[in-house]
């Protein structure tokens, strides 16, 4: 698999569903911000957003996958139409009740089955595994800056 193709998978899944410098009162609002970006582009049906909130409530703060980073998602049958991501960077962190609070980066995530999103997740995981990635993301002020950061990090990882 060529590097350029690998890079495109994550960027294509993300599209321009990016919100930087966002504010949210609490984790529910933060999850909804990420979910609404997915709804806007038709990646998910509207009901998917409330399912993201419900799943997080039911299963606890497991959605916080790393210090400062949450990846809330619901199930494919909750109204996911395709594979897609959204990314919200909060100006001030919110608490999910996780040892990795406060959360500054919320990644909305949808997949229509259990396998089609593997490569996207792999690239996302590589990107998030850099120890300083949350600090870098907090500094981002525009979608362009985010794109540049993603590209440079993905090149480094491959």
């Amino acid at each position, binding site marked *: 698999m060529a590097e350029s193709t690998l890079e495109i998978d994550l960027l294509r899944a993300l599209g321009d569903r990016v919100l930087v410098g966002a504010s949210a009162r609490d984790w529910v609002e933060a999850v909804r911000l990420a979910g609404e970006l997915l709804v806007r582009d038709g990646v998910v049906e509207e009901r998917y957003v409330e399912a993201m909130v419900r799943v997080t409530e039911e299963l606890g703060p497991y959605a916080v996958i790393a210090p400062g980073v949450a990846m809330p998602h619901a199930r494919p049958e909750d109204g996911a139409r395709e594979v897609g991501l959204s990314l919200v960077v909060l100006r001030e962190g919110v608490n999910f009740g996780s*040892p990795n609070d406060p959360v500054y980066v919320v990644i909305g995530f949808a997949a229509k089955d259990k396998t089609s999103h593997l490569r996207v997740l792999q690239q996302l995981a590589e990107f998030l595994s850099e120890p300083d990635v949350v600090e870098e993301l907090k500094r981002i002020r525009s979608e362009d800056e985010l794109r540049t950061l993603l590209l440079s990090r993905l090149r480094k990882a491959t």
Partner: protein
Amino acid sequence: MSAKYKFKLGRPLKVVTVCGVGQGSSLIMKMFVDDVLKELGVPARVEPTEIITAKAAGADMIVCSILHEPELRGAAKIVVGLKSLVDKREMREKISKALLEAGWLEQVA
């Protein structure tokens, strides 16, 4: 990584990675666990799943969030709880320590 290990189980290690839904963070963990076990020279079959299935999977090792660790304790000989699901170093440290303690891995150099 300089330490060398010898795997002693005599069959591939059966591993499940666990998250709430079984299609997001469990997949992310699977990718990193695959890498870590390969580096340790441990042949393994790693399946992503959710909690209910994990409990009945008969796995040798369960890898999950520290939030799920208490609930899964006892469901496999080794249960590794992670603070960060994308930190390969944390994974490598905790997995190699657990495998050594279980006697399934031996340090040879």
